[in-house]
Structure formats: C-alpha cells, structure tokens
C-alpha cells in the first residue's frame, strides 16, 4: 500500500506540524487553490493540526462550484431535448441550475448518464448513431486533455452525433483574480498539483513576482499538504516569494508536453464567467476552429435561457476566500447538501459541502458540538 498509507503517516505528520509551529511568528492566510485539496484538508482534519496563526483559505478550484448557472441551465435544456443522450461526470448531477438539477431532469425521463471518462461518451455516440450524444466537459486543466482527446477522436471518426458542452476554466487567471481583489487576504498559494502535472509550473513565476506571493505546487495526501503549508510558511516568514515544487513525484517544470499539444490543438483561450465570481478575462478554454462543429452550444438552440442565482447564496465570497462557509448565515440552515443554494454546497470538493460534511466540529466549536438536526 505504498503511495497511500505512507503519505498518511501520523508520526511524519506530527513532525511537519511541529516544524510549522516552530517557524510561524504571525498570522498568515494560505489558499489551497484546488477543491480536491480542500476536501483532503477537511477529510483528514489537517486544519486542526495547524497552529492558530496559519489559516487555510479555500480557493476557487472546484470545477463543479465555478461552472456558471447559465451553463447548468443550458445543460438542463439540452439534456431534456428529446433524443439526446446526455453524459456527465457524477458530481455535476446535483448542481442546482436556476430551477432544478440534472437529477430532476433525469427523473422526468431525460437520458442522463454518469460516465467516468469522456471517451465513454464517444463510445456511446458510436453505439447510438441515431441519437445526439452530448458530453458535459467541465473542469480545470486536469480533465481538459481527456476531453480534448474525446473531441479529437470524434472528429477523426467524423461522428456527427457527438458534441461537448464546454466549461473549462484555468488556474493561473483565477490566482490573478484572487490577488487583484481589493478584499484579498491571501498571502501564499498552494498550487493544485494535478493541474501542474499537465501544465507544469512555468506559468507561476510571473504571478509570484507580480504579487510578491509564494506559490508552492502541492499534492493531495495529508503529508503533501502539510509539506506544502510548511514551505509556504517558511517562505512567508523569510519574506521570499519563490515558486516551489513540493510534489516532484508527479509534477515537472514543463508538465506533460503531449497533453499540452493536444489542448492547443483543440482549445483556445476565452473569457469565462465563474459562478459566484463573475467574468475573468482569458480564464477558460473553448473549442477552436473546426472543432467548433462539436460545440453543443452551437448545435442546440440554448442561447436565450434566463438564469438567476439564489440571492441568499454567498458562494462567490467563499470562492474568493473572503468568507468562511460557516460564517454564511444560510450555512447549515437554509443551505445544506440536501437543499443547496449554490454549487459549493453540492460538490464533494465544494468548500461549503466539505465544511458541512466533515467540519461540523470546527464550525460548531470542537468539543461540545451537537447535531443540528
């Protein structure tokens, strides 16, 4: 069980924690960018191991959370179109659109299928030539290569019945947006290790320089995270702002070149709206050139959908790191995983859901916590 238990070793965790305690002299807010890291932090109780000076701020790196409500509504409309076979990753099914989610549309008879790879959707398109098969391509740079591969394959096979609803978003513009926000408190970043496994980390030195902020490429296991935090704190205390790689077993400076080539072939940069945050310039990818023919937004007439967010949802502030989930008045009362106001309460990577599921002890004051129900 190497590579699993060895990165969850209690004794090593204590050693890293005591190094952090020894180094820290004043309060620091460190943002873990990726939702997978947020999930791991809460699931393993890592935030409770840290000295009070080190505050982890949960970033906008949950693809489910930042997919704009307009796009969810488009997905719902396309999925409900007769004859369409709509494929999605599992955790998109419960994300609320303006009125409902994909589970509800499925319940009314739409053919919505959970797939585990976009290539499964291509296979379904080949098996069902008389039906339109649509894949909901959501995610950061991590999932993008497989999605690019799927469109590339569909084009090569001349699959006229395959298309993708694309909502790809990019990490570096998000870091830029967080740092340029006037309310920003973040002083260091844990960059998302899996994004960097694809893209490398050559995009980060300019950001570190521009905002004089340390950026540590960090993995997802408890020891990875503690080491990332340790390096960030050491830099903050020393007043440096370098880009460090604390995940070298997976990440190289250049990243995965063949994957990047596939991405450049299929996608081009575009402005994208982030749910709860707003439009960030050049922060996403869309299909380019002749791959546009596979764009579900062009294939299906879904341009004039009216979307609106719940006015009570403050997920934008959570995603920017200016509000902790349990500081929101709706948290755990009107907004729960069962009745989510926003996507951050739905996804297992969403900061609000992670707090609700795993962190109620923290949210309620550890030792005397009682069940809210």
């Amino acid at each position, binding site marked *: *069980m190497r590579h*699993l*238990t060895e990165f*969850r*070793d*209690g004794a090593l*965790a*204590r050693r890293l924690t005591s190094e952090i305690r020894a180094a820290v002299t004043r309060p620091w807010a460190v943002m873990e960018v990726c939702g*997978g890291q947020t*999930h791991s932090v*809460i*699931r*393993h*109780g*890592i*935030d*409770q*191991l840290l000295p009070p000076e080190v505050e982890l701020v949960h970033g906008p790196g949950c*693809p*489910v959370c930042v997919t704009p409500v307009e796009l969810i509504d488009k997905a719902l409309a396309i999925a409900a179109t007769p004859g369409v076979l709509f494929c999605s*990753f*599992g*955790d*998109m*099914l*419960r994300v609320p659109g303006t009125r409902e989610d994909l589970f509800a549309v499925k319940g009314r008879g739409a053919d919505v*299928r*959970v*797939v*585990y*790879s976009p290539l*499964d959707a291509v296979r379904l398109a080949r098996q069902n030539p008389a039906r339109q098969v649509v894949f909901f391509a*959501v*995610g*950061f740079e*991590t*999932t993008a290569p497989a999605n690019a591969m799927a469109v590339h394959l569909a084009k090569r096979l001349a699959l006229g019945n395959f298309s993708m609803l694309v909502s790809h978003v990019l990490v570096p513009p998000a870091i830029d947006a967080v740092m340029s926000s006037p309310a920003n408190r973040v002083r260091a970043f844990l960059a998302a290790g*899996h994004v960097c496994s694809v893209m490398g980390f050559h995009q980060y030195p300019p950001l570190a320089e521009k905002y004089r902020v340390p950026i540590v490429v960090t993995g997802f296991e*408890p*020891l990875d995270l*503690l080491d990332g935090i340790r390096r960030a704190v050491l830099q903050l205390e020393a007043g440096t702002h370098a880009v460090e790689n604390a995940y070298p077993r997976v990440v190289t400076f250049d990243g995965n070149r063949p994957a990047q080539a596939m991405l450049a072939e299929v996608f081009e940069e575009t402005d994208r709206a982030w749910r709860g945050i707003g439009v960030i310039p050049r922060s996403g990818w869309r299909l380019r050139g002749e791959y546009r023919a596979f764009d579900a937004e062009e294939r299906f007439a879904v341009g004039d959908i009216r979307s609106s967010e719940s006015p009570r949802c403050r997920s934008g502030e959570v995603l920017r790191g200016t509000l902790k989930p349990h500081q929101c008045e709706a948290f755990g009362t009107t907004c729960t*995983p*069962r009745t989510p106001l926003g996507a951050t309460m739905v*996804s*297992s*990577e969403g900061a609000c859901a992670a707090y*609700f*599921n*795993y*962190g*109620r*002890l923290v949210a309620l004051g*550890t*030792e*005397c*916590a*009682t*069940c809210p*129900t």
Partner: protein
Amino acid sequence: MPDLTPDAWTCPLPLRDYPHVVLGHGGGGRLSADLVEHLFLPAFRNAALAPLGDAAVLPPASGRLAFTTDSYVVRPLFFPGGCVGDLAVNGTVNDLAVSGATPLYLSAGFILEEGLPFADLGRIVTRMAAAARGAGVTVVCGDTKVVDRGHGDGCYITTAGVGVVPDGVNVGVHRAQPGDAVVVSGAVGNHGMAVLSVRAGLEFETQIASDSAPLSGLVAAMLAACPDLRAMRDPTRGGLAATLNEIATRSGVGIEIDETAVPVDDEVRAACDLLGLDPLLVANEGKLVAVVPPDSANRLLTVMRRHPLGTRAAVIGTITDQHPKVVVARTAVGGRRVVPIPLGEQLPRIC
C-alpha cells in the same frame, strides 16, 4: 439432492423450448408450471414447499417471531463474489440475524424481464439455493412475474424472512450507552467496490470480491458468548457511516471512531481513492457492527475471530456522551472529522 453447482445446472427438456424467459413464464399456465417444476422445486426442495399450496404451512416455533423483507436490485446481476441470488438470501438472513433472530424461512418473489437467458436464471437460482443451505434457512414459498423487455433489469428478487428471537436476547440500535465498545466484524467496502468494478463504463481490473455471506452463524456465536450485546446492524447501503449514524441517532449518543482501526483492504482503499469515494460509505453484504459493554469487548472479539466471517473483527471506537447523534472519526494524521450521513449514492468526483 440435485447437483446445484452452476456448471452442472442444465435446463430440463420442457424449458429448452425457450432459451430465454418469455412473457408466458409469468402467466400462471403451463410455462409457469414448468418453471416451478423444473427449476425452483429442484433447487429449493423442502417439505414446506413441496405441496405447492397457496401458502406454506409451518410448524409452531418457540420464541418471539422476527419478520423482515427486502428487495434486491443490482446491476450487473453477476459480480465478483456473488450475484443477485445469493444477495437476496444473505441480505434478508442478515437482517434477521442482526436482530438477534435465528433465521428459519424465506419467501422469494421473482420479477423477471422477458429475454433473460435461462442459463442466467439457472445460475441465480442455484446460487440462491446454495446460499439458503449455507445460512440454514429454507425457501418455503415464492412467486414469479415476467415483465416486458425493457421494463426490468433482468431479474429483481424480493425475499421476506421469518426467524425466532430466543428468550433473553434483546438487541436494538436504540440501546447503545456511553462507554460501550463499537466492533466491526471485518474489512469494509468490498461489496460496493466489487459491483462498481464490473459496472458498465467503469470496468477496472481488481481482485476485489463481494463479501456477500450469511451472518447467522457468527451472530449465534456472538450471542452465546455475550448475551449482553446491546446492538447489531449490518452496514449495507450507506456503509459503515450510515450504520454508525443510525446507532448514534437512535440511541441519542455520540460515537468516536479511530479511522485507522477500521479494517479496509488495500485494494478497496486504492479503488476508493481513485474514484474519490469514502470506504466508510461503501456497501457491505457480509459484515456487521456490534455495540457491546466495555468489559465484554475482548470476549466478543475472541469469539468473533474464531469464526471464519469474523477473523478480522476489531474494536473501532467507543460510544460517548459527547456530541450526541454525531459520529466523529480520528484520522490517521491525528485530525478529527465528522463522519456524515450519506445523502444518497456517492458520486465519483471529477478529478
């Protein structure tokens, strides 16, 4: 005794007219009778079933009656370590067993989809019969209906079970008390991951097999050694997390578990991590959770570990009066987290 091994099972002549289930097999006529006579009767053969009456007439039993029912819907029908047939027996037997009952009789209702290959139905029924013999129960009555193609997933089975609770045995999920030890009978998550590993679109290569097994023998040994057992539950859908939360809620207590003490097979842990699932929330079909007074815990463990289905039994935590109705896990790195009540199915994560 007919040879009930799957390879030896062959359709007797009248059934060979159709290699698949057709609507007529549920019509109550000749085809239905053929199915009963040539498949169900030889497989489940017993005195109560033989007269083929409208109801099984059973001898009086001493003790309180326990009565339960469950429906079995699983896709695919066959998975590593089992199929819908043995699941339908073991699941209901286990519901009786963890109630403190000695399981005695089962009913079996089949809803078959037109087009189900007889070879598949034969394997399902054969494994069901073998599971019943293994659990010491008899299938004493049954029913078959056939639905149009496309209106079912091949084969749904509903079983009801009757057992007797011996005098002096009194277990219930509302009876956990602060200080009690929480015991699990073995590694968790195997059934759910075995089924996932062969589900269309997600096939991954693994050695994980379902833990589907009847717990009646293990429970009998446990009750004989520890009559003061307070609560038992089999952590099926919703996994260990759902079961612990149910005990905490129904007993009005908190539960504190040590995550590293929960037995999880390496393969299950790896597959869960890959898919972003929590092994504590994955289904089991041959495990139980027991709550026992602290001074009985060691005796219980000794007895459980002697039984083939309890060799990896372990104390995983304690009942506490802190945080009532909340289950808290101490993690490997020393943090604490709430073990949530699962909302519905776990959804594999995007990345």
